[in-house]
């Protein structure tokens, strides 16, 4: 028998009680893991935003247009490496419920700036050459079964063609794959030139610009320079870092981070109380045995370790089961909820879980372990 075995035997003395406690911990960590996976998906855009990228939108609202002439004026600002632009298409495939994140872009500059979007060189070449070509994100391609060479009609809920049709025909030039799992590829994009020439209104306007700065230290200055340049014009701009822009975009749906924190927080407070209470009860029932162990020669420190070990083991079993299941579920979430963003059970989530498990184990065991350590043998043995 080893110390660990002794701890295990102590823990599983009351099988039902321990099973119920493990179940409570399991549920809390399952909730944590699933919500963290969801949040990772929602926050991917914020977390992965390029520090050297700025988004320039119309000051009124990011759905309002701005003249394409702005692109060259912004490009002239010192410290800027590259400028791209994009316009919202508001597309869907066949039926409105098949909504697609879709926009018209300046192909070369856009792909240069978004290096996290990987396109095979041949497909990229094909896309740059074909004005009617479309690049399809892997998530979209997988959902609708689009393949390179497919002709796909995309409808717009916003725009009309000059001939009155709401449908544009595109040829799939390539599939965009993510450079890493957390990069969202739920989108389609095509040539701005083709879009501009065929749409009935809008003229020479674009939706927004993406600016890549040469040095992130200059971001603040460049943001000011750009917005000052267009101040008091009919199209005033608002420039933000990509991170700030993505964050503001997500927060339109409410403060997700806070909601998740509140849910996870209350789950943890609950199990802290449940497990803490169970440990107190368990140790109080064993007062006499603890006194005997001390009599035999177990030091207070050893007794402390024995009980903290027990609460840690409890937390580890319940926690790993919960986190493990959440990890399995995350693969299903990545499939089923890809339109919300790339759901991943990140390394960070795993590490946070381990820290939470250790904290739970130590917190719930500390008071009973401390009491047991300080237990006076004479008094404890005297009160049979």
């Amino acid at each position: 028998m080893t110390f660990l075995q002794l701890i295990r035997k102590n823990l599983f003395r009351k099988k039902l009680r321990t099973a119920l406690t493990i179940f409570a911990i399991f549920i809390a960590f399952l909730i944590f893991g699933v919500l963290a996976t969801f949040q990772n998906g929602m926050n991917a855009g914020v977390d992965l935003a390029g520090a050297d990228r700025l988004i320039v939108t119309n000051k009124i609202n990011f759905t309002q247009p701005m003249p394409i002439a702005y692109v060259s004026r912004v490009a002239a600002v010192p410290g800027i490496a590259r400028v791209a632009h994009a316009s919202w298409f508001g597309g869907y495939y066949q039926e409105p419920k098949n909504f697609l994140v879709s926009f018209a872009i300046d192909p070369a500059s856009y792909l240069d700036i978004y290096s996290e979007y990987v396109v095979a060189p041949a497909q990229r070449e094909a896309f740059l050459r074909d004005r009617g070509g479309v690049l399809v994100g892997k998530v979209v391609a997988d959902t609708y079964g689009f393949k390179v060479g497919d002709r796909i009609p995309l409808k717009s809920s916003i725009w009309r063609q000059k001939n009155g049709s709401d449908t544009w025909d595109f040829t799939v030039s390539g599939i965009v794959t993510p450079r890493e799992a957390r990069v969202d590829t739920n989108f389609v994009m095509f040539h701005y030139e083709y879009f501009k020439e065929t749409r009935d209104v809008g003229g020479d306007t674009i939706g927004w610009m993406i600016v890549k700065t040469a040095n992130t230290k200059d971001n603040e200055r460049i943001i000011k320079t750009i917005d000052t340049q267009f101040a008091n014009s009919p199209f005033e701009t608002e420039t933000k870092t990509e991170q700030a822009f993505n964050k503001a975009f997500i927060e339109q749906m409410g403060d997700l981070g806070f909601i998740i924190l509140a849910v996870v927080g209350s789950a943890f407070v609950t199990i802290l109380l449940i497990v803490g209470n169970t440990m107190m009860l368990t140790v109080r029932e064993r007062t006499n045995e603890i006194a005997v162990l001390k009599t035999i020669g177990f030091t207070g420190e050893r007794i402390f370790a024995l009980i903290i070990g027990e609460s840690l083991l409890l937390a580890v079993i319940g926690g790993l089961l919960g986190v493990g299941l959440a990890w399995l579920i995350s693969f299903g979430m990545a499939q089923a909820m890809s339109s919300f963003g790339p759901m991943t059970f990140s390394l960070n989530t795993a590490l946070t879980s381990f820290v939470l498990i250790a904290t739970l184990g130590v917190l719930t065991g500390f008071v009973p372990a401390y009491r047991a350590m300080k237990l006076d043998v004479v008094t404890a043995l005297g009160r049979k």
Partner: protein
Amino acid sequence: MSDALIVLKNIGKRYTRGKQQVRIFDHLDMAIPRQDFVAMMGPSGSGKTTLLNLLGGIDKPSEGEIAFEGKRMDDLSEGKLAAFRAANVGFVFQFYNLMPMLTAAQNVELPLLLTKLGPKARRERVQTALTIVNLADRARHKPSELSGGQQQRVAIARAIVSDPKLLLCDEPTGDLDRETADEILGMLQTLNRDLGKTIVMVTHDPEAARFAKRTLHLDKGHFVEKDLNA
């Protein structure tokens, strides 16, 4: 006196209960020779358990000195006292005090967790201890599957497994019938005679005291002469 295993000199012991001070011992002297088997009797509350606790290094005297094999132990730290108990003292209680979820063998093995012995050496020690108390065939039984007498034998095996010189027994047969009690007492006698264990046993039972080499009577914190037939 020079060959005494344990010597108590001028011991005072007080407990504070609220504002009241309870004096249990005052200027108590005692020497227990090696390989002695002492029965200690006396009315309830006379301080028998308290004395046993002092001898075993569970409790500390308020005044005076206690020496084990010539070395003082009343001034040792908690940690050192724990190590002292693990190495030198085996305890047997009235209510056996076994861990219910451990088998007989695992209960006996508990004190060995504090030693550096490897698994094989431990298994041999446990086997030997269980054989001495005639329970080798019950090694895998849980306490709940054993009779009171058998549980007390497991407790004795646990007390001797790390081969301590001193055995302290507090009413070891207080919960057993005559026949079982005699069996346990015979076993203690064997441990004393054949293995040279020094034993101090508290008992209320004059029959039990007969198994010892001598009997001490404690009354209000003092040893008194007493005629057993009175």
